Structure formats: structure tokens, C-alpha cells
């Protein structure tokens, strides 16, 4: 039996060897795509917000809430129609980082586990993707809040 150290070294060597055969992800192209599509989503959201404030005479806070709701609803609809994953394949972080990604991560397991019933299927799996993000995000915000409070 080989000891753990040599095993780990061998695994590392093999990993480096495998890398020679693996095509590199197109980081630059993907980055540019994400930048442009993400920017477009945000610009569109901003345009809607401006329209709500100017034409519909909404307050800024109310307009922001409506825009958020609109983004979430659009992402949910696109997920339900089966278009979001195709879109995300092209846009990458461009449509995952805005709140649209969050909406998608809630709806996609909901659709997936419909067959297992409304409670133990959808209910249990609804947060299977978004849950860990929420837990870590909220924890991080508490820590950040504590730091800010200490610095006062």
C-alpha cells in the first residue's frame, strides 16, 4: 500500500498531465460576453426605473422595488419556458450575477422536483441551489455589519 504522501503527489502529477489535454475555457471571450449582456440587463432595468419615476410618477424607492420584481418575474418566466439555460450558456455571469440568476436558481429546482409533490418535492428542494448562497450571504452580511459597528 502506498502512503498518502506519494499518492497525493501522483494525483498532482496526473492532474498536471491531464491539463495538457484539456482545452482552456475562453475566459476573455466569456468575460466580454458577460460584461456586455450584464450591462445591457442593468441598463434596461435602469431605463424602466427612469420611465417609472418620470412617466408613472412613482417615488424612487417604489420604482426600484418594481424593477426588481420585474427582473425576477422575467427570469422566472424565461426559466419556465426553458429559455433561461440557453441564455445563460451565452451570457454566463452576465445574467447569473444580477437578481435574474437568483430567480432562476429558485424556479429551476421547483420545476425539476414537481414530480415529487408540492411539499416534499418543491417545498424541500426549492432552496437546494439558492439556500447555500442565502446562508453564506446572510452570514457574511452579519459579519460585515459587526465590523462596521466595531469601527464606529
Amino acid at each position, binding site marked *: 500500500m502506498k502512503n498518502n504522501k506519494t499518492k497525493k503527489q501522483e*494525483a498532482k502529477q496526473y*492532474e498536471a498531465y491531464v491539463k495538457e489535454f484539456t482545452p*482552456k475555457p475562453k475566459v476573455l471571450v466569456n468575460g466580454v460576453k458577460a460584461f456586455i449582456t450584464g450591462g445591457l440587463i442593468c441598463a434596461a432595468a435602469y431605463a424602466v426605473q427612469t420611465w417609472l419615476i418620470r412617466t408613472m410618477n412613482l417615488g424612487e424607492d417604489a420604482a426600484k422595488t418594481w424593477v426588481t420584481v420585474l427582473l425576477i418575474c422575467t427570469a422566472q418566466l424565461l426559466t419556465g419556458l426553458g429559455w433561461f*439555460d440557453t441564455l445563460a450558456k451565452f451570457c454566463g455571469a452576465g*445574467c447569473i450575477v444580477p437578481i435574474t440568476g437568483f430567480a*432562476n436558481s429558485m424556479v429551476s429546482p421547483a420545476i425539476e422536483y414537481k414530480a415529487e409533490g408540492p411539499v416534499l418535492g418543491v417545498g424541500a428542494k426549492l432552496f437546494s441551489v439558492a439556500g447555500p448562497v442565502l446562508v453564506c450571504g446572510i452570514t457574511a452580511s452579519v459579519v460585515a455589519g459587526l465590523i462596521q459597528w466595531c469601527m464606529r
Partner: protein
Amino acid sequence: MNHQRGKQSIVFSNRPYVVGAAAVVGVKEGQGPQRKWFDFILEDDIFGEKTWEKAEGKMLKKAIDLALGDGRVPEKQVDLLLGGDLINQLMIANYAARDLQIPFLGLYGACSTMTESLIMGSVFIDGGYASNAVCAASSHYCTAERQFRMPLEHGNQRPPSAQWTATASGSMVLSGRRSPGRNIRISAATIGRVVDPGIKDVNQMGAAMAPAAVDTLLTHFRDMDRTPSDYDVILSGDLGNIGKNILIDMMEKQGCPVTEQYNDCGALMYTDSQDVHSGGSGCGCSASIFSGRVIKEMRQGTLRRALIMSTGALLSTISSGQGESIPGIAHAVVLEAEGGE
């Protein structure tokens, strides 16, 4: 008489006949370059069922029914059903077996299940413990994705090394008795060892399995005292484009180059334009190409002797969640065409 060759290989003195075979594939696979070799292509991957799992079960049963029809073996005369899939506790194969009412042994070898079942079936028939046996394996993109990865509609980008689980089922009917026409027989097999090169990335399955495939190939040639040129074709299961190139490179470094006759079902299943990155994977990938293309080519006489080797990545959602590396395995089976010359 001793049927063992070396430690891992066996030869069959009665050499079981492959009397029937069939491959059923999904929409995407049916649009791929192997289209003409498949017996049935689904119009819709849900196959008229309510859940993906039921659809896969129906697909597996369809492949078995078609193979029985192809071999003209009535269901009642089948003594044994051997097979498996990727879904927890072999859900798919269990449901297909429930519908078929043939004595059933479920097998799990991850994506290596097709040759695993062929080896088991051959042993039963060679030893006289069964007259007719069905060997089958299945995978479905939609059932595997939800179990091993993310929900289908979840928006994410797959890395270049990722492989696409093939929606496909393959089935072969083995028999102790010959059938009319050209005969295909199983003459030998090599049972693989588990080899774990330490890969932890679930998107590097081909690389995780390649060393196991190399190990089985080298052992096979040593045990059987053969070289790659003794075969018209050597086909691995689902190493994909990356794993295939690793295998070619490793075999060359071992002084046993296989370039001429070697290919991989995962690399054959799709074209680049189908956007599957490193190729196909899943039990059905090798099962459908072996049962579809290889058997038909042997019947047509373009192949005389084939070495088929399904490859499996023995991971689970628990093992990858706990950060464990992926053990690989590969089993090889020798198919020989007889007569017609």
C-alpha cells in the same frame, strides 16, 4: 478445463452467441453522426411519460423488446435479465424488470455496466446456467443531470472538459444456441480493477477513467498474449475527447500504441456543433453504440473481431460532496464474427 487467462481474463469454451441486439436513443443522439446505426430514435425525450425516470425505464424496456424481436427469442424463453443504470438503487432497471417478468440481477458499474452485464451473461451461458440471457444498460440526460448535477433549467456554463450524459439504452440477447445467418460470439473478457488516479473534479470524468481503461487494455493484451493489431476495432465506453487522447498517449508511452483501430463511443456520439464539449458519457453511450453500430457492422462483415470496453466513473453525489477522488473501472469483452466468408 481452466477458463482463466492470467489473473483478470477469462475465455469461454462454449463462446455464447449474440443473437439479438438493439439500441434506442434520444433526440439529440438521433441527430448525431451515429444516427443510422440506432434501431429506434425517440421523438421526445419524455417518451410520453410523466417523469424522466419513467421515460428512461420505458426506453430501456423498448431496447430489450427490440433486441428480443431481433433475435426472435420469445420473452418466456429468457432465463435471465442482467442490467443497470445510473439512478439511485437502480430505479430504472428495476422498473423495466418489473414490467418484463424475467428473472433479474441488477448490476451497477456506473457507465461500465454494459460490458459488466455482457461478462456476467456470458459466464451464465457458458457454464450452462442459462440458455438465453438479456444484457442491458441505460442512461438518460435528464435523470442523470438532476441526480448528479444541477436542475435542468438552471443557468450555468459547462467547462470544456464536461461530458454530456447520453439519452440511450442498449440491449443484447445472449444465447447458447446459434441463430441463422452470420454469428457473433463472445470469446473472451477481461474484468477490470478499480484504478483511482486522484481526480476530484466531476467535470473531468474522462481523465478519471482513462488510467483504468489503460490498465484493463494492457492486462487484456498480456493475459491473452495479443496485440492491438489482433483487433479490427478497439472501442472504449465514454472517455470523451479528452480521455480518449489521454488513453492514446498513455498506451503509446507504455509501448503499446492503439491509434489505428482505437476509438471511443463518447467521442463518436456527437459532433462538435452539438455543443457537448468533451463528448458523451453514461451507460447508454457505450451500450447503444455496441448494441447498435458494432453488432450491425459485424453482421455486415466489416468487422471480424472487436474489443469493446465500457468505462465507469464510480462516483456518487455523496463521494463528490465529501471531496473524495473518483475511482475508475473498465471491463473488456471480445466479440468475434463467424461465417460469411
